[in-house]
């Protein structure tokens, strides 16, 4: 079994009076893409936000690279090597693409000091960013904004990327481009990917966990879930055929 990078044990998260995560156990191995699936309201986004420290677990532990980050503040978690791409993308629309990436490059003091080789690597799969380098990010299309959000997460090497529904609202042609980008990304990065688009993640995922009612109800390999239509029906209420 490959080394575990992230491990959640019995994690409970409350938001106000609501008890959202009700004992999440999740293991993310180092390398490749772990997919977190589940219906709306199952707790996927809350899981990512809890890992990131944006909401703190009321019980349980979150361990990352051997250390306990359960109650760590968000900036500390980010500095430990976790990057977050929220569902809303949360790009800084008043800032240019360049400035968005510059802020994410914590190690440099000026935008000119950003690692050019790494930027070229990013431009390799998100070519539009090069074209719109000095445009305010708010003027870009939805797909381009998603590229900025992901590029921001990988502008410097990170140990783990948390990516929440990157295909949401995107046109099929752009999603195909995203698949190619993620295929390349997973060669070097570890990704925990939340998605509802099963056809997208089935082409990419290495391992999978399925959430329901604030708990993980299934975990295993993506290949196993892709092949087992009964299991898909049981866990997700869909099959690959009906969700192309």
């Amino acid at each position: 079994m490959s080394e575990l990078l992230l491990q959640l044990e019995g994690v409970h998260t409350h938001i106000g009076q609501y008890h959202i995560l009700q004992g999440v156990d999740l293991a993310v191995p180092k390398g490749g893409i772990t997919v977190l699936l589940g219906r709306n309201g199952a707790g996927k986004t809350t899981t990512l936000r809890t890992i990131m420290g944006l909401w703190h677990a009321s019980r349980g532990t979150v361990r990352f690279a051997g250390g306990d980050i359960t109650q760590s503040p968000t900036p500390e978690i980010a500095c430990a090597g976790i990057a977050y791409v929220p569902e809303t993308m949360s790009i800084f629309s008043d800032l240019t693409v360049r400035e968005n990436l510059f802020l994410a490059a914590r190690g440099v003091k000026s935008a000119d000091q950003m690692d050019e080789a790494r930027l070229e690597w990013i431009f390799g799969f998100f070519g539009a960013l090069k074209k719109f380098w000095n445009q305010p990010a708010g003027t870009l299309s939805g797909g381009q904004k998603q590229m900025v959000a992901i590029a921001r997460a990988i502008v410097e090497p990170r140990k783990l990327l948390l990516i929440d529904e990157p295909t949401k609202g995107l046109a099929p042609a752009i999603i195909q481009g995203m698949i190619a980008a993620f295929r390349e990304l997973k060669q070097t990065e570890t990704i925990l990917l939340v998605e509802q688009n099963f056809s997208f993640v089935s082409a990419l995922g290495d391992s999978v966990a399925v959430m329901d009612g604030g708990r993980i109800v299934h975990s295993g390999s993506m290949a196993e879930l892709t092949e087992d239509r009964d299991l898909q029906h049981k866990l997700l209420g869909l099959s690959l055929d009906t969700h192309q």
Partner: protein
Amino acid sequence: MTTIATVAAQDSALPKLRVDILPLLLVPVLALAMLPLVGSFPTWVTLTVAGLAMGMMVFMMASGLTLIFGLMDVLNFGHGAFVSVGAFTATLVLLPMKGWVEADSILLNLSVLGLAIVLAMLVTGMLGWAFERIIIRPVYGLHLKQILITMGGMIVAEQLIHVIWGAEQIPLQLPTTFRGAFIIGDAALEKYRLIAVGVGLTVFVTMFLVLNRTKVGLLIRAGVENGEMVEALGYRIRRLFVGVFMAGSALAGLGGVMWGLYKETLTAAIGGEITVLVFIVIIIGGLGSVGGCFIGAMLVALVANYAGFLAPKVALVSDILLMVTVLLWRPQGLYPVAKR
């Protein structure tokens, strides 16, 4: 390999950005539209310069508040306290160093004004640090409590000023070389107003450069838009909060010094009196927008000056009417800041 520099050079081939220039045109259009109504060119020049000078001073006081609201989501109704404290702190320099104030030397006059400004900004900056820790920090995210506690803070500050400096008005003398006016043709341009314009422009340009050319400035702009994401990138936004609060308070202190010298008389209520105007300015400009705040301050001051000359009775409500008109046109203000 294509470098980033060449990428930037390729931008010339990109479609031009749509720059929202309408709000920028408001100030010159308003000024020019008033010329036939005022009738006399020299009077119009005098009114316009007076309006711009007042606008610059209001901008100094309002710019910090708009950043504090935009970044920290804090409704600081106690901002006027920093104006008052700044103005009164200046007396600690201006009154004992009366010789420098009265000297007919621009060097000594500028030195004494500079010292007063530095001391006022230091005191109000430190006071801002304490205010944020003691009064603001417990009420982050609680707007009603923020309003109540910051108004309470302002009342306490005013009373403390009474305790320290007494309840009497304190006359504040303009340095000798700042008094009087330049006469150009038939127009009289008061020297101190021109100095206020210079100081205001310096503050605006400095803020513009910091916010656009430095990483801290970009973080502040990003934090105004989405503080949570700034934290997720690994930056401690609480430290930014404290820094911005201190800077905003120090700017209010600077505004207080300039405003106090403009009024030439100090009372503890000097900050409270200007607070309403400052809030009108930041609402007109768009909460969190420094550029909008600058234009808003110019508009408010010019309208007040023109209305005071043309229709003194309307002048009492001219700022409110201006705010209503702007908000009917742009409900989020002239330059709304994108929020999450």
